[in-house]
């Protein structure tokens, strides 16, 4: 959209501006309370599951078996089947952990922070972004657990009084991770569930089969839509948003401390906390786009998840991507400005050493390609292009973690201890398996739960706005 299209005489003016309100459009025109309810709930309540769903679920499930196989073998043989060894003692497991947790950030950001900022456009995408968050945290949480070597003793991570009088190391950020991630997962699940309660009430009332009526009746917690219910629902949402907002910052900050408190060049840098958070939101929004674009096409939801949403998500990605780019820039600058040979060598090695290719991929995927194109509104509203960008950024953000972990470790202070890192087939199978698990879980969500919040979409319709009495009386839905 060129700014000239917003001038009243321009033929494209109506595409962007709602003539009734004079405001920018969020939803396509012609939506009513009834049509919104029918559109969203019918996807779940229909007895006919689309064949495409079965096909994708089958693929997701099949890929998830990689994970099952790899983890079984891991438990039998130990972490020696992975490529982790000296000097690269952290490999795919931590890379994947950080990548998945990062993806999980967009859900809470959309649900909590954009709610506090009164950003109405979030309503179309918050539900599946929250679901994405939870499934991403499930995938992320697995990696530290399977990395401990003896996962059946994973509960030792928790500080509990025991006969050995052994306590976890409270000064280690790895322990802070346990608290940060578990709190984040808990709040995200509660937020997600509470947000769905009014919609479960609708589903219960529209369900035709006794099983569906019973199931949605049970999980709707007796929702009747009374004023008191709505009041409590709104209060709970705001309180949870307030609780979740610091979590968006804290989780990835704590994860950044896993690296930054060490004295290793490439890890020990003060910009890591904000730069990790921005990177998490960047990749999280990329994943929301990766999911939203096929979903809106497959289930014909273009009227509810509109070009405006895609455009806005592109803007958020541009903003967070620029913060990430600022972080990369400051890392490079400080490697020189520090006047430290170790810092300087680390950056030189990261860029031009044997694994310099990975830094190149990272710069292309996270900076060069998205941050030059996302400025252009025409590209931000091009659905195919945005899907491509989302895949590219997710790839780039995975490489960011690869670069941080591997290229900082494989050539540290002592040249005699230098080595390299080559992931094994078990590393790859574990990672790819989580992609399958994530896909399968997400498809189950889409099939059995309302993926867009009906109640919140309806609040954005003209009928929900406060109007003069006569105008309301003349309106019918």
């Amino acid at each position, binding site marked *: *959209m060129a*700014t*000239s299209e*917003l*001038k*009243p005489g321009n033929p494209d003016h109506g595409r*962007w*501006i709602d003539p009734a309100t*004079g*405001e*920018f459009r969020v939803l396509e025109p012609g939506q009513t309370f009834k049509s919104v309810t029918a559109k969203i709930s019918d996807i779940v309540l229909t007895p006919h599951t689309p064949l495409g769903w079965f096909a994708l679920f089958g693929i997701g499930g099949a890929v998830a078996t990689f994970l099952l196989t790899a983890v079984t073998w891991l438990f039998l043989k130990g972490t020696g089947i992975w490529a982790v060894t000296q000097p690269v003692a952290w490999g795919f497991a931590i890379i994947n952990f950080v990548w998945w947790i990062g993806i999980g950030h967009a859900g809470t950001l959309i649900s909590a922070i954009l709610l*506090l*900022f*009164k950003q109405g456009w979030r309503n179309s995408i918050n539900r599946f972004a929250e679901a994405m968050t939870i499934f991403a945290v499930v995938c992320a949480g697995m990696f530290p657990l399977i990395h401990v070597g003896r996962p059946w003793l994973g509960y030792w991570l928790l500080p509990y009084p025991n006969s050995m009088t052994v306590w976890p190391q409270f000064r280690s950020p790895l322990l802070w991770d346990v608290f940060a991630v578990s709190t984040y997962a808990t709040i995200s699940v509660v937020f997600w569930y509470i947000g769905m309660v009014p919609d479960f009430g609708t589903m219960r009332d529209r369900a035709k089969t006794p099983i569906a009526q019973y199931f949605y009746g049970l999980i709707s917690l007796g929702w009747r839509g009374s004023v008191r219910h709505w009041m409590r629902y709104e209060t709970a949402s705001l309180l949870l948003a307030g609780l979740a907002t*610091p979590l968006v*910052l804290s989780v990835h*900050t704590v994860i950044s*401390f896993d690296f*930054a*408190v*060490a*004295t290793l060049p490439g890890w*020990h*840098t*003060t*910009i*890591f*906390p*904000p730069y990790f958070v921005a990177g998490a939101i960047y990749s999280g929004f990329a994943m929301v786009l990766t999911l939203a674009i096929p979903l809106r096409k497959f289930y014909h939801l273009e009227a509810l998840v509109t070009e405006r949403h895609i455009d806005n998500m592109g803007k958020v990605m*541009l903003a967070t991507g*620029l913060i990430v780019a*600022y*972080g990369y820039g*400051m*890392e490079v*600058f*400080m490697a020189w*400005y*520090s*006047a*430290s040979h170790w810092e300087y060598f680390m950056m030189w090695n990261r860029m031009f050493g044997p694994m310099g290719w990975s830094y190149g991929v990272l710069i292309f995927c996270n900076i060069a390609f998205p941050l030059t194109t996302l*400025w252009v509104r025409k590209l931000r509203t091009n659905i195919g292009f945005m899907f491509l960008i989302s895949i590219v950024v997710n790839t780039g953000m995975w490489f960011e973690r690869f670069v941080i972990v591997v290229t900082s470790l494989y050539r540290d202070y002592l040249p005699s201890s230098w080595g390299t890192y080559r992931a094994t087939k078990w590393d790859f199978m574990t990672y790819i398996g989580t992609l399958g698990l994530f896909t399968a879980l997400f498809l189950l969500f889409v099939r059995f739960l309302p993926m867009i919040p009906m109640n919140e979409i309806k609040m954005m319709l003209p009928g929900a706005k*406060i109007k*003069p*009495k*006569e105008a309301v009386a003349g309106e019918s839905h």
Partner: protein
Amino acid sequence: MAHESHTKTLPADLSAPPVVNTWRTRALIVGVVFSVIAAGLAFADGSIDHVLRAWLLGLVLTFGFAVGGLALLMVQYVTGGKWGLLLRRPLEAMSRTLPLVFVYWIPIAVFQGKLYMWANHGIVDQALKLGQITQDQVEAIDHAIKWKAPMLNPTSFVVVSVICFAIWGFYTWRLNSLALKRDADSPDNTPFWIKKFENLSGFGILVYSLTMTAVVIYWVMSLDVTWYSSVYGLLFLVGQGYQVLAFAILISIALSQYEPFKTVLRQTEQHDLGKFTFAFVMLNIYLGFAQFLIIWSGNLPEEIPWYLDRIRGHWGIIITLDFIFHWLIPFSLLLSRDIKRNKKRLTRICQWMIFAKAFDLFWLIEPNFKDAARNLHFSWGILEYIAVPVALTAFWFAFFTTRLQTRGLVAINDPHVVEILEPEHAHA
């Protein structure tokens, strides 16, 4: 149509109230009085060293108001929101004080040899002679000066700063002149103007982040030539948000006793601004504490002395007070919904926050000098940190009030104008 009958009307006269003249007169009196005190202190101290250090504090503080104001102006164009409409004219006026900030910068550029080791090696020699640093430290300093010479030299200090001022000047001029054109245009063209400002401001925020980082590295971080922290620019960025919001709320509430702000400042938006400020209070401590935690845990000889210089030798009292002033007090008070909605109390907190910001800058600047590192002691010169910044800020405020009077206080071609004139409960 009950609610329509309560809708307020924008006053016909949107210009600044006459009380602004009184504020200017008072500010000028304060400026003159504190200038005289500063001169007297310099005479008593027998040196202008502390005048220059305190001048740097005053420069950074007023620079924060002017350029931070410009940044927040761009942020409100990009994000929209009713709070932005309320603050737009005060923020524009803050950005138009840039010429005065440039004047404030000139003495720093002229006397850089008295402040920066990289500009005058005599400072290092003198510190060694007085036993304030060891021979090992001199070697580290010499290595850093030599390594960073392509960047840290008197010429590039001036060139980079002038380029940054020119860039901020361009954005100030463009945003301020377009704002007048927008108000003179037909309301039908408002969506066009919204996008135009969005486009200009989006890139402007990026440019601001880079230029602001560049100057704070030159002006403040390079006072200690051996130390570095990659989050330093962001810390200043958030710090500017902290002080600009505090000042903008202060002005808005003060103006709300008179028209037109009396009509447009509702409790809802005041509450929103309080929440926004609270977010900056949190972000500020978040970045400050993260930097501390990482450096403290690392305990590296290149980094940790910077904190030790600011903790040992009675500086521990200042850092404790800084933590309480800068974070604990505003955080604890701004948690309260009632306080955020109470004009008088919110005013007090905002005044306190501006003082706390200046206090934080004192902790940040003074220990860079080897006579003060790990050695907080009384001298007539140290009192310059009160006299000079107060004088500079008072003159800056007087200039700000002049800028505030040059245009109406409320932008009229904005969709939010209708909303802020509605009764509070309509969209609560």
